[in-house]
């Protein structure tokens, strides 16, 4: 297919060129600070439009490129340079890369459009050119990480991605929370990188090259023990990036600290590069391993999803809440991946394909709805200047469109049919059900527990989004923050609208979507998913003896028809509906105070009580200026929940590290002579060894 | 003779129901409810024994079955009910292990019981006979009985735990050897009966002396 290859080249050039040019050109203006003159403001505004324009262009070509690769099944290969020690530094877009590229590009398009309007307020306050530069580099590095075909190149780009993210987290650097989050992030991500370096070096030791193709070809020569080490290191290294529990602590700090468009990208796609890495290493490089690999991933997945959503329920900061939900959704994705690994280790290829499909489908879904939700949160914060949902309320009337899009996002993440979140959870359930055929006790115990906890996660997520959406948008306003709230600009709404549309399409046409993902699973597992499932357009079916399928397209038609029924019936039975607007019932109180409403903390209290063993929460009630027992001036209520990982995992590690550092400090005298002595001794020792 | 497949199916279902009663005992707080559930459990157990009689023609269990229903299903429960009425303690209030955790532990017990019994079943190659297949259930019930004794503090609950254990022993006896020899059964029954009577009197006395039947207090003796 000569023509498509040429088209690929052009699209690839646009993809890389767009981001690079967007980044490069903004560098020229990095010195320009915004002042009050409208001339300069307009200039910067134009620079901003250009910068994000390039990003949009590049992202769209990325979409097309990945579409082409997924449709034709021809990988795109591009060699940069032949270096002797590391093998060929090459770009290689196979099906798996193309799929993740599609997720990044789709979300990149929407977020870039959003940024036109969102970053407008930065022009006067901050260095907008720097933002454009970092933004483009960030997207570029993510894209390149996904498509690089060489270990060394991968690590370099991985590091580039981490550093850009650090600068973006600390973009609002006068806020000490941002700086702290940035430092936490950079420390965690470097620990991860260290594991990855070791992992790639181990692989390269057998392959004699850092080329991904070489890794694949030596799969059978690596002894099992080394394979296990590689797997575990990949799991830790990539796990830190994707924020699975217990490596999650950076995530809820870093995501809220960044500007909202960046949070959307970080949460939507950056953490997915970790998933990409896990899938790449465990399926592509290593192949099916022992069963406990799968069980381990399933365990991590279950813990991440349940604890992620439980911690999310306790949050009142809307962006932190969403960040915790990212941990939860990474868990759901890993359920699919872990189940796939588990099934394939027993040689059950077709169920493994369904499980992996479910995981990958959720990768795409989470990218879309979490991107949408972060953008929605961005709009809310933009309009009200507060992230605390307990200070919001009643925004439905002031931000009607944002509310609608946020509602679609909330429904999608709560897995309500026929939106996209439902499809991937359905697939995960089906995949787990298929696993019951495996005659192994551990598997048969692991599956019911995973099923139960996935169900729990889904329901808790719905509870959490009733809270997040309800407290933010519905009821009465709780503070003056909402007084001059205004609807977002057109580009921001357009971006959210685009993502909402994608969420709906992903939900209604699962068959079509699966036909794009199926090549990925079949390339990784060597098993075509159609052995077990039927999918076309609006319906899918998993066959397991007897077929069981869903057809969201028909379902939404049924739902639509059924909505008409009560309207028609009501009209026919008793005529036109009569409405009267009135005050709410407040036990006889005349004027309704918004403080009567449940707060976010109040809303989640039953869940806090039920899961008190996990939260170990403590609260403090402070009553001041008691004039009488019944009329109190102010009551301060403070609630703390304790992170078990903070206390039992990170604190000990930190203590050991600090005390270790104290010991090491003695060596560090600060005198140049002693350092030279160390070097001298090292040299002599080396010479002795190398003798 | 009835269709053996239906017999074995009914035995399995009864065994499952007995397990349910054990779980409900673990989940509840009311002492009277414990006693009623125990009565129900014993009657179900008697029904299992009757089915073994009908299905496999093991007539010697008939007496044991009748004894189970009469003694453990009616006599002991009514005696215990009287004790509860007299001592006026109706609720289990504080637990060594709370209810939610208890239930999870019992779930683990069932899984453990299965993994213990499975090798035996596989070895004997008898898993086509239903009675043998209730072995895991009987082990689970024994262990749940023991667990009730650990988790609860009231003396009446301790008795119920003991009796549940005994029911488990009876069920496993049924499952392995179609019931133990009659003389052993009767011996056990006598033991249990006397034990319950004595314990009942003890509970009454403990209550009179200490105003509580919580076994915590007994440590001070």
């Amino acid at each position: 297919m000569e023509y498509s290859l040429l088209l690929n080249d052009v699209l690839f050039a646009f993809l890389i060129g767009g981001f690079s040019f967007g980044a490069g050109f903004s560098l020229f203006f990095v010195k320009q600070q915004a002042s009050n003159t409208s001339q300069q403001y307009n200039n910067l505004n134009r620079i901003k439009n250009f910068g994000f324009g390039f990003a949009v262009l590049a992202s769209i070509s990325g979409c097309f490129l990945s579409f082409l690769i997924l449709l034709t099944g021809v990988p795109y290969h591009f060699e940069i340079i032949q270096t002797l020690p590391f093998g060929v530094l090459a770009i290689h877009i196979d099906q798996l890369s193309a799929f993740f590229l599609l997720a990044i590009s789709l979300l990149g398009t929407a977020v870039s459009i959003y940024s036109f309007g969102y970053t407008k307020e930065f022009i006067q306050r901050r260095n907008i050119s720097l933002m454009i530069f970092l933004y483009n580099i960030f997207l570029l590095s993510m894209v390149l990480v996904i498509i690089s075909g060489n270990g060394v190149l991968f690590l370099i780009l991985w590091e580039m991605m981490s550093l850009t993210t650090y600068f973006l987290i600390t973009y609002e650097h006068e806020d000490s929370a941002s700086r702290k989050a940035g430092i936490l992030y950079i420390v965690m991500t470097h620990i991860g990188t260290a594991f990855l370096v070791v992992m790639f070096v181990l692989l390269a030791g057998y392959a004699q090259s850092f080329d991904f193709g070489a890794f694949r070809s030596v799969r059978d020569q690596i002894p099992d023990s080394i394979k296990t080490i590689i797997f575990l290191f990949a799991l830790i290294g990539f796990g830190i990036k994707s924020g699975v529990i217990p490596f999650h602590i950076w995530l809820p700090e870093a995501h809220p600290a960044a500007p909202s468009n960046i949070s959307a990208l970080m949460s939507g796609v950056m953490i997915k590069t970790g998933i990409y890495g896990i899938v790449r290493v465990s399926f592509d490089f290593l192949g099916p391993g022992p069963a406990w690999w799968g069980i381990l991933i399933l365990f991590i997945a279950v813990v991440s999803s349940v604890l992620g959503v439980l911690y999310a329920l306790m949050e009142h900061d809307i962006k932190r809440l969403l960040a915790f939900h990212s941990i939860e959704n990474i868990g759901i994705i890993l359920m699919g991946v872990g189940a796939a690994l588990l099934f394939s280790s027993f040689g059950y290829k077709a169920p493994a394909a369904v499980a992996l499909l479910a995981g990958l489908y959720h990768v795409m879904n989470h990218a879309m709805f979490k991107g949408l939700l972060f953008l929605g949160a961005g709009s809310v914060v933009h309009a009200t200047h507060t992230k605390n949902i307990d200070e919001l309320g009643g925004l439905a009337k002031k931000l009607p469109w944002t509310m609608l899009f946020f509602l679609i996002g909330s429904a999608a993440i709560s897995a309500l049919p026929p939106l996209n979140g439902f499809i991937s959870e359905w697939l995960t359930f089906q995949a787990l059900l298929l696993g019951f055929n495996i005659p192994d006790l551990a598997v048969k115990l692991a599956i019911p527990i995973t099923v139960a906890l996935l169900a729990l996660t889904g329901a808790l997520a719905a509870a959490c989004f009733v809270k997040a959406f309800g407290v933010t948008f519905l009821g009465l306003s709780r503070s003056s923050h909402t007084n001059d709230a205004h609807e977002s600009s057109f580009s921001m709404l357009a971006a959210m609208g685009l993502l909402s549309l994608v969420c709906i399409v992903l939900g209604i046409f699962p068959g079509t979507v699966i036909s794009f993902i199926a090549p990925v699973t079949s390339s990784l597992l060597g098993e075509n998913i159609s052995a077990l499932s039927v999918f076309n357009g609006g319906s899918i079916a998993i066959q397991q003896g007897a077929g069981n399928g869903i057809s969201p397209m028909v379902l939404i038609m049924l739902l639509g028809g059924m909505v008409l029924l009560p309207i028609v019936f009501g009209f026919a039975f008793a005529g036109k509906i009569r409405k009267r607007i009135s005050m709410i019932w407040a036990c006889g109180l005349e004027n309704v105070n918004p403080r009567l409403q449940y707060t976010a903390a109040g809303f989640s209290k039953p869940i806090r009580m039920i899961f008190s063993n996990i939260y170990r929460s403590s609260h403090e009630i402070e009553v001041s200026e008691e004039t009488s027992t019944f009329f109190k001036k102010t009551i301060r209520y403070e609630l703390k929940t304790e992170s078990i990982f903070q206390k039992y995992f990170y604190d000990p590690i930190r203590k050991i590290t600090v005390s270790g550092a104290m010991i090491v400090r003695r060596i560090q005298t600060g005198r140049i002579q002693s350092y030279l002595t160390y070097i001298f001794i090292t040299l002599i020792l080396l010479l002795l060894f190398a003798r | 003779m009835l269709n053996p497949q239906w017999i074995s199916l009914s035995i399995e279902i009864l065994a499952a129901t007995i397990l349910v009663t054990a779980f409900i005992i673990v989940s509840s707080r009311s002492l009277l409810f414990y006693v009623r559930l125990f009565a129900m459990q014993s009657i179900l157990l008697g029904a299992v024994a009757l089915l073994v009689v009908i299905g496999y023609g093991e007539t010697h269990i008939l007496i044991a079955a009748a004894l189970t229903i009469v003694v453990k299903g009616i006599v002991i429960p009514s005696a215990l009910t009287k004790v509860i009425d007299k001592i006026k303690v109706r609720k289990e209030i504080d637990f060594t292990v709370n209810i939610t955790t208890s239930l999870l532990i019992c779930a683990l017990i069932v899984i453990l019981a299965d993994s213990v019994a499975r090798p035996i079943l596989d070895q004997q190659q008898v898993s086509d006979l239903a009675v043998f297949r209730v072995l895991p259930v009987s082990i689970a019930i024994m262990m749940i009985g023991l667990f009730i004794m650990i988790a609860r503090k009231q003396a009446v609950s301790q008795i119920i735990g003991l009796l549940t254990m005994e029911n488990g022993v009876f069920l496993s006896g049924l499952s392995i050897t179609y019931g133990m020899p009659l003389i052993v059964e009767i011996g056990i029954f006598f033991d249990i009966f006397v034990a319950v009577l004595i314990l009942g009197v003890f509970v009454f006395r403990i209550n009179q002396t200490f105003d509580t039947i919580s076994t915590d207090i007994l440590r001070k003796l």
Partner: protein
Amino acid sequence: MKEFIDTLFVFSIQLLVMLFLAPLVNGIIKKTKARLQNRRGASIIQPYFDLAKLLRKEVVIPVTSSWIFRVTPYIAFASTLAIVLLVPTIFAPVPFHWVGDIITVIYLFAIARFFVALAGIDAGSAFGGLGSSREMSIASIIEPAMMLAIFTVAVTAGSTDLSIIVNRLSTTPASMVHPSHVLAFIGLFIVTIAETGRIPVDNPATHLELTMIHEAMILEYSGRYLAFIEWASQIKLLIFLSLLANMFVPIGMAADVSSISLIIGIAAFTIKVFVLAIIVALIETLNAKLRLFRVPELLMVAFVLSLIALILYFIIGT
């Protein structure tokens, strides 16, 4: 064409029976409770009069609310009716069984719950938030038990498609009664009680602040909106009862549209549902409402029973 007419026929019978049987089931529960409590009680067709009255009455809309409040009754009603089309009641297989399976049914209930909970918050009163908060909390701890109980049956039948579950059990009666089904049935029964807000989890008759769950959430609803929400929750109860009845006792389902099998189908279905309704009424009479924080313990029983059911399926054998 014949096929199309048959489908349409089955479709409308299914819809009509569920729509108009639901208030009756509610009436039977109320009547049974009344008789058990030595009261005379209202007539069993009283719920129909209530609905008719509510449908005619004017709707009062809180000034604070947004459009969520106004669309919720329709969404709740529509999603419940969509479930009606997926659940085999009189006929098995139902014409739309390929549209959604049992997992879809659970998630369709979630739609209704999601929107009703939002509407509770939307009213802007203290009660709405209280109800929504409790409803969502309880719903989330119900979910694992429900999913496991249903998976037990799905594993036995080898499918999550409700019509296949029901048919498979009726073609091979040996797999119909399985010991693990006993556990799963009890698990699902507790789930039903919790999901449909009956005693001992929630009291559908109370309007006391401390104890309301579902009622608090819909406190601001009135007139036609309330009628649809009430009706939807009556249908929800009927759906759960028919799931219990038909998944575990799949007897007498009509396989075709001939008049004999139709009559048998309707008769079998009504008898099964009425028996279950009377059991629900018995449980309501014999138990007091649990404290809110005792509910997790009850649901833990359901969860553990369902978990054991699934594991027992492998233990006692297939």
